[in-house]
């Protein structure tokens, strides 16, 4: 693809590596894993393990698709990277504190990491990476309706996780929100 031109490869890497790295970081929460995933993605790309076809989508979607496979493989290999209990405890503990902005971001990050993989992928791609539904569908290899559904469900789970914090800060009466997620 690059016909042995290192400058062409370096240019593509510099343009796209942040998207790949951030996706891996949001999905795993571990910078070292994100670094490994980024390296593996571009190694696979330069080796031509997965032939890129521009008719099937953009380079960005293609790279994120490879990154997604590596991330899922890594998550399944090391389940201890994200512990449900740990995140729940973190969220509940944070609910009782006055949150500054940094802590709120950290709490949000933990909540995202706590999401099931399917929902996390949709939230990361659509909300954090700001991809359109169609681009996210290319990355995940599914229909746009599936993306919308997963994003809807993922965001609802985030609201559930973060509701104590919001309720405390807003001092509003607790509402039953299960109706909207049904």
């Amino acid at each position, binding site marked *: 693809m*690059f*016909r*042995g031109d*290192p400058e062409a*490869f*370096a240019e593509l*890497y*510099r343009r796209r*590596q*942040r998207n*790949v*790295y*951030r996706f891996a*970081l*949001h999905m795993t929460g571990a910078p070292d894993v*994100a*670094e490994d995933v*980024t*390296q593996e993605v*571009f*190694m696979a790309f*330069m*080796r031509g393990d997965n032939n890129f076809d521009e008719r099937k989508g953009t380079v960005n979607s293609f790279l994120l698709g490879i990154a997604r496979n590596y991330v899922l493989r890594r998550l399944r290999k090391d389940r201890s990277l994200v512990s449900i209990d740990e995140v729940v405890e973190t969220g509940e503990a944070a609910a009782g504190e006055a949150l500054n*902005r940094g802590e*709120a*971001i950290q709490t*949000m*990050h933990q909540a*995202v990491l706590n999401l099931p993989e399917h929902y996390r992928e949709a*939230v990361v791609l*659509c*909300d*954090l*990476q*700001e991809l359109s539904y169609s681009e996210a569908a290319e990355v995940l290899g599914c229909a746009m309706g599936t993306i*919308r559904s997963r*994003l*809807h469900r993922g*965001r609802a789970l*985030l*609201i559930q996780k*973060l*509701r104590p914090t*919001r309720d405390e800060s807003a001092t509003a009466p607790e*509402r039953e*929100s299960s*109706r*909207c997620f049904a």
Partner: protein
Amino acid sequence: MNCQKFEVVVNDIAREQMIDAGARAEALRHIDDCQNCADRLADERAITTRLRELAESVKSAGAPARVEARLLAAFNEISRVQFPAPPVFARQNRRRYFAVAIAAGLLFMFGLSAVLWRQAPPPANQDSRAASVAGATNNLATTTASSTNVSSAPNVKKYVARAAVWRRKSATKREDPASAKPLGDNAANTEIATDFLPMTYGGAMNLQEGGQMVRVELPRLAMASFGLPVNMDRANEKVKADVLLGIDGLAHAIRFVR
């Protein structure tokens, strides 16, 4: 719009995505009448804000520079295998080819000049010897039929054989006898000669040590001394003869040529 339809578009409204303007207006009118949906939209907007803050916090995040260095090193390694650099080898091969071509050209020129030098006509004093030798060779091979009475003698055969050896030895520098014909091809081909006849005083001297052939003219009557028939009416005429001289300067054999 009811709450169920509102639930379909609430994400897009909260995320400020492009939706149908009519649907958006209906949804906003719906939250004026439905507190639950208004709260639902507020929750969605809040989560959108916090997600954007999270995205903003890692916006500048990227892989460390060492990843790029490792990837470029790997890329160069792969490129070296998939796209081997031909120019260096090509230049070396081209130089080798030029050197070999020049050497081959020089060898060819030397070889050609050597062949031409060998084929060049020799000096005049050597031409007569060469012609005599060539003539002797040809006659030894071709004219025995005309002198069967002479070649039947065993001592004559011995001398003839020695003469042939001497001829080969002295003519090794001229591989092509036909090219050394100072008297011309016609003369060499048309001459008829007897076999070499031993001279009585020459003994059995070994002619392989060297020698020389000299063409002389003798009175025809001299042929009678070697037992050859002579027409006495032409006894005073001259007849050509080749005399084999040894390294001692003495004549060892003679043949008569017509």
